[in-house]
């Protein structure tokens, strides 16, 4: 079966609360995709401010604190890696051929303990609402 990647873009919000208010919807959606046997992987990313952009120019690795930010380059692919920390991720990012003529943005995926429980509580009907 062909694979498709869905890339989710959202306005950067200062208020993380807004983001979690929709948690029940996300869970429902993820669950239905999983049940249908379609889901390979998914996950929320840490804010773009925590991104590091890697470029290799003239054999030297250049790091930029922040997300990839030019309009002339387009998203061309992805790797999802298990790494001990950002150093390991950056090292592999610098190995991508794209790093030599484009950019590789490195973002951490939130782990389960970093995602608030608001959604789950809400779904169970115990919470006061996620407003």
């Amino acid at each position, binding site marked *: 079966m062909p694979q498709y990647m869905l890339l989710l873009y959202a306005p950067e919000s200062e208020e993380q609360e807004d983001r979690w208010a929709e948690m029940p919807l996300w869970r429902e959606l993820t669950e239905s995709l999983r049940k249908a046997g379609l889901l390979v992987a998914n996950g929320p990313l840490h804010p773009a*401010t925590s991104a590091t952009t890697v470029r290799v120019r003239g054999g030297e690795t250049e790091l*930029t*604190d*922040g997300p990839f930010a030019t309009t002339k380059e387009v998203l061309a692919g992805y790797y999802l890696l298990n790494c001990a*920390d950002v*150093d390991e991720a950056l090292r592999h990012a610098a190995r991508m051929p794209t790093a030599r003529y484009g950019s590789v943005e490195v973002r951490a995926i939130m*782990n389960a*303990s970093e995602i*608030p429980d608001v959604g789950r509580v809400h779904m169970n009907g115990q919470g006061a609402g996620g407003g």
Partner: protein
Amino acid sequence: MADVTTAAAVRVFRDERAAVLATLIRYVGDFQVAEDAVQDAFEAALAAWRRDGVPDNPAAWITVTARRRAIDRLRRDQSISDRAERLAALLRLNQQEHPPAAEASAIADDRLRLIFTCCHPALDTPAQVALTLRTLGGLTTGEIARAFLVAEPTMGKRIVRAKRKIADARIPYRVPSGEELPERVRGVLRVVYLIFNEGYSASEGDLLVRAELCDEAIRLGRVVCELMPGDAEAWGLLALMLLHDARRAARVDGNGSYVPLQEQDRSMWDWDRIREGFQALEHAVRSERPGQYLLQAAISALHIRAADGGAADWARIAELYEALGRLTPSPVVQVNHATAVGFAYGASAGLRLLDPLRSDPALERYQPLHATHAELLRRAGDLRGAAGAYERAIALSANGVERAELERRLQALTAG
């Protein structure tokens, strides 16, 4: 009485905060929680010490209190990853009456980890500088903001964002290994150098805060040398900072005018710093391949030796600038090289080195280039050319002290 206590607490914090914080971060795994716990301990110290007097070992008091506060915070804060394991480790540590003997070297390692984390290349340079001053130095957010001429909330946001990124991106808390190490050490030294430079040669701002930046950079430089005694560039940087800073007070006279090195009052030099600087230089010169900081320190040392009697060895200084230019090419170095060559081999030799710089449009507004050009033209006898170049330099100068000096030289030109 209360003031004496406050002063004692402030002093202990200035000296011990970084070490206490560094160890706590390792246990807690989160900058913010560790920092909040240390802040709690400071406030607890103020209250308890006013009541009971300053304890015999204030540093130990703060270490223990900060650790207990961190335990409280970890119990409350559910969002920290590996919370249970971290809490268990802290509780174990807290139960030990006497910390293990290996703790002293572990504390040194923690400080080194903290330095490398604050200067991690995934953080942008202003964030590295701010975070280093905040966590390793004794400066408050307000002081750092004033030193860098930004609003306090802006600086606060910068620091919070940096800490957030360390947590979110999982910037590791460790001393980099093997092949990574040289590059990362260079990054750390660069941050210390930037802090020093901001204090030493900034174009405006509060003089007192600037002096604090120099002191802070020197303190950090000493720590880096102590932690990495085998690194020649660390010693070179320390020597460079000490030899420059020793002459800071003599650079400006009572009227706020700039005083050139040759005319400085040597009794205003800080001879303890100069001695320490020369000692650091001794460490650094054992290295086979001199780096940029060692070369700059050597140049500074030659200037000091010259002003301390006898003529400057301009040929040697020119040689050092040339080596520096090969290592780190920059207009600053090229302009200084031309000055030294001008003194060593005559003004026209210096002017020849300036020619390619003067035709570079990027340097059209580079004030030191025009000031040096003016000086060399004057010495070559082209007074009209010199006057024009001085005027250009004056128009570009953002620093009042420096501008006054340039105006004095321009007037001396027409008077003579």
